[in-house]
């Protein structure tokens, strides 16, 4: 028991705990839709590309949150513009944009900083999270979860059958646009906790794990949150005892959770049982 509670004697670890829990809730709530819409690639590119906005804001002494959200918006717009090209697949455009924005961020930051801050942005610095960071993440996270809750029905329709959804009045492209902005919000929340690189882990892995078990959307969302919180806090505790980097440890714990559930559900999935009704 002490093994679990000891790490949280110090106040900086308490703040880290809260930051990890917020990430563990919000990222999987948004991530559920990223997984269902098969947008994991986009999530990866968005999180990396956000570094451009973060870097520019950091170099200019402005708010990195605004920078990250701005980069997300610009990327979303550019993605819409370039994905009109039928000769290139959307996954190609996503990769080109994501790496370009990431490179821009690295170049800008490396000109003003020797590398410490770059490492913080990439892999998080959950142990130095301030109360201001915590409150900001709480506000952004609450807004993101509320947005998903409000749009739950629309997301379901637009994701399962976008053709029919549009026919009955769903604004499919608007729903997609909101989801892309929520991706940027998740990256901002992850910035201080697990970092930009590991943001995708929290976005995709708990939701993917939940997908293996859940029958309904509600089940999937709740399970994803349960995995997300457990893995974020578990990773934090483990990193304290191992003296390892918290963001990456959280990522590994999350991957381990996926591997275990994948293994346990393997027998159930192996023979494809499509049972027709009698």
């Amino acid at each position, binding site marked *: 028991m002490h093994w679990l509670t000891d790490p949280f004697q110090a106040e900086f670890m308490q703040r880290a705990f809260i930051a990890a829990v917020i990430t563990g809730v919000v990222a999987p709530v948004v991530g559920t839709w990223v997984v269902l819409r098969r947008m994991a690639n986009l999530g990866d590119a968005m999180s990396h590309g956000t570094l451009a906005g973060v870097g520019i804001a950091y170099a200019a002494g402005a708010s990195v949150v605004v920078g990250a959200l701005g980069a997300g918006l610009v990327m979303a717009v550019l993605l819409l513009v370039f994905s009109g090209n039928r000769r290139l697949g959307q996954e190609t455009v996503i990769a080109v944009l994501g790496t370009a924005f990431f490179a821009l961020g690295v170049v800008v930051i490396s000109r003003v900083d020797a590398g410490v801050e770059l490492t913080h942005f990439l892999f998080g610095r959950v142990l130095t999270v301030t109360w201001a960071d915590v409150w900001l993440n709480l506000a952004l996270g609450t807004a993101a979860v509320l947005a998903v809750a*409000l749009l739950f029905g629309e997301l*379901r329709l637009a994701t399962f059958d976008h053709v*029919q959804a549009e*026919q009955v009045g769903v604004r499919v492209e608007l729903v997609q646009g909101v989801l892309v902005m929520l991706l940027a919000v998740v990256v901002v929340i992850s910035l201080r906790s697990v970092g930009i690189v590991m943001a995708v882990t929290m976005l995709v892995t708990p939701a993917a794990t939940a997908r293996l078990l859940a029958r309904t959307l509600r089940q999937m969302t709740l399970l994803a949150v349960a995995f997300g919180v457990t893995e974020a806090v578990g990773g934090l505790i483990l990193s304290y005892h191992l003296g390892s980097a918290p963001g990456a440890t959280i990522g590994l714990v999350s991957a381990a959770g996926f591997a275990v559930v994948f293994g346990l559900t393997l027998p159930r999935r192996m023979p494809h049982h499509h049972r027709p*009704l009698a």
Partner: protein
Amino acid sequence: MSAVSTGTGPLLEVDGLGVHYAATVALHDVSFAVDRGELVAVIGPNGAGKSTMFKAICGLVNHQGVVEVNGVHCHDRTDRMDLAYIPQRNDNDLHFPITVGELVMAGRRRFRHWWQRSSSADRAAAESALARVRLSGTADRALTELSGGQLQRAYVARALAQEASVVLLDEALSGVDQPTTLELLDVFRSLADEGTTIIVATHDLALARRRFSRCIAVNGTLRGDGAPGEVLSSDVLDATFGSASFVSGGPDALAD
């Protein structure tokens, strides 16, 4: 928003419908009108433009010409809520965590705003739609638990829950076995008798002749339109398929 027609003209009127993909003309000058309760087979070879025609009618592709539903000129997708389209081998992920009941409820979205929850009236309508396609009691099932024919009927139930006056089914009878085909046709016939117009693209000319009240032949443009006996003649089949001889024994083999 009722399924009952208020106009006196045809339920669905298509005039001068044409679709171009870059330099290719996929469909040219197609005109026809369909009344309430008709059961229409659309025939034509692969690549003839049947799917393109359905998509154009539903406003899914840019097109020339006019589509009117209940006498209302359709400008965009929202003018076409009275149409329901069930695509060929639709690309929906059947492993998506959605139940049969939730699938059918998707049709009810038309009657509320995005922020509104579904009402008990919506649920009653969805249950009644499932009953009409003989899928009562399946609302809590996952889509992967349905057979191919049951899935098609679930999509038809969604169209009924949408209170669509016209249901367009692209290749609904392909890849399903004979009993399922007959079961689907029975459902289509009973819905048509109740006033829903059903338009089905099919490759099965013998079924088109025996089980449909009307036949529309398409290959790039309209090649024939009328009672199955008239349309499934050697002249029209020649014009539609290039040759009528592909039917063993010639078009006479299509006779009852």
